[in-house]
């Protein structure tokens, strides 16, 4: 099979076009600088290639394909979280702050958010179990949770916190209970999704790929 005839939808396993074929890795809005990928020119002959180079290229292409799959999964996950408003553009700000001098910035901030939120949610559970409820203290906790969720871009958590604060203002016990359940639920969702995102990122880096983080914009 020649280059012209081979039109694989997935990884090409059989023909000689493997060694030249690479996939363009330009994601919408993202530029992947370190991971190679240029489209090979169709129709180029590989008569000059020897076997050793073909082996290296096959291994390299398989590596690239794994990374490609992982990157696609990561990009799809990020896009869906933004579309579903689980995360908002503030999360993108965090990603823009991550660079070679601060390579785990997002993970660090988000980890602090997880710990801090878990503490706040435990304390809120205790407060709401009391009788009478200290609504001022509850509101102060929700205010903190709202602030930190806003800072990392956890939009749904923040939205529930806004509703929660209204229930505190109205001293609505049942409303507060419902909001607590909802905020725990939303927190659990964003935590699971972000943990999955970090796992994907680790796999990509381990496979020699690079993270498709948005470039810092010029303001």
């Amino acid at each position, binding site marked *: 099979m020649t280059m012209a005839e081979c039109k694989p939808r997935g990884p090409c396993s059989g023909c000689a076009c493997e060694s030249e074929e690479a996939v363009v890795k330009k994601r919408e809005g993202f530029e992947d600088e370190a991971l190679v990928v240029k489209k090979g020119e169709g129709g180029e002959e590989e008569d000059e290639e020897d076997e050793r180079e073909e082996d290296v290229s096959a291994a390299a292409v398989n590596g690239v394909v794994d990374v490609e799959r992982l990157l696609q999964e990561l990009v799809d996950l990020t896009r869906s979280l933004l579309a579903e408003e689980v995360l908002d553009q503030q999360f993108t700000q965090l990603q823009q702050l991550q660079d*070679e001098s601060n390579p785990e910035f997002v993970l660090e901030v988000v980890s602090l958010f997880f710990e801090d939120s878990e503490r706040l949610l435990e304390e809120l559970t205790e407060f709401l179990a009391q009788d009478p409820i200290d609504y001022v203290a509850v509101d102060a906790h929700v205010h903190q949770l709202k*602030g930190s969720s806003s800072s990392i871009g956890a939009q749904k958590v923040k939205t529930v916190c806004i509703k929660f604060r209204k229930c505190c203002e109205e001293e609505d016990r049942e409303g507060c209970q419902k909001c607590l359940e909802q905020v725990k639920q939303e927190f659990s969702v964003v935590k699971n999704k972000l943990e999955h995102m970090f796992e994907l990122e680790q796999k990509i880096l381990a496979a020699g790929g690079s993270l498709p983080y948005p470039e810092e914009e010029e303001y």
Partner: protein
Amino acid sequence: MELLMELSSKMTTNNYPVSQKRFAAAISSIPEAHVLAVDDSIVDRKLIEGLLKTSLYKVTAVDSALKALEFLGVRDGCSTSLRPNASQVNLIITDYCMPGMTGYDLLKAIKDSTALREIPVVVMSSENSPNRIESCLKEGAEEFLIKPVKISDVKRLWSYIRNPTKAPCSGSGETLGPSPICSKRKVGSLEGLQVKSNPESQPCLNGVIVA
């Protein structure tokens, strides 16, 4: 062949794209400025550190207004012998809502101090309250930022730091004349203010100590 070599070299290089801004800044002649950040939220302290460091500021982050004053060498509203720290701080950025001493109280304490009043202060808050904004500006804050703080907010902070290598005060704590650092005071005016629309506006829970 060329493509293969490029492929293998790219796969072994640094996994993170070099920030263009950092590169440009590294080769520029912008001097380093020291910012004191004050916020009781651990998440926000981490965020503000990240935001400031990306603009090549040196950052000291503390979790309360009292600790900020200690760092600056002021106790009980009086200047003690001025610590070297104070003379090295080029900007203070503080949260408004903090338990105990608020960011507004801190702003007032700084502007009431002959040793510290020339240090520009920026206040941050999640609440978009015109009264709060106006009172901070009247008290001498350079700007009032609505949280969450973004990269674009931080990039503007340079305009408040006229001379990063110059100490705002002398070591002896004498009152100095007007400093170029505070040439941009917005008193009683909301002009040029960073205000974003926020449908929620709640009073700050001053004085509530949260465990």
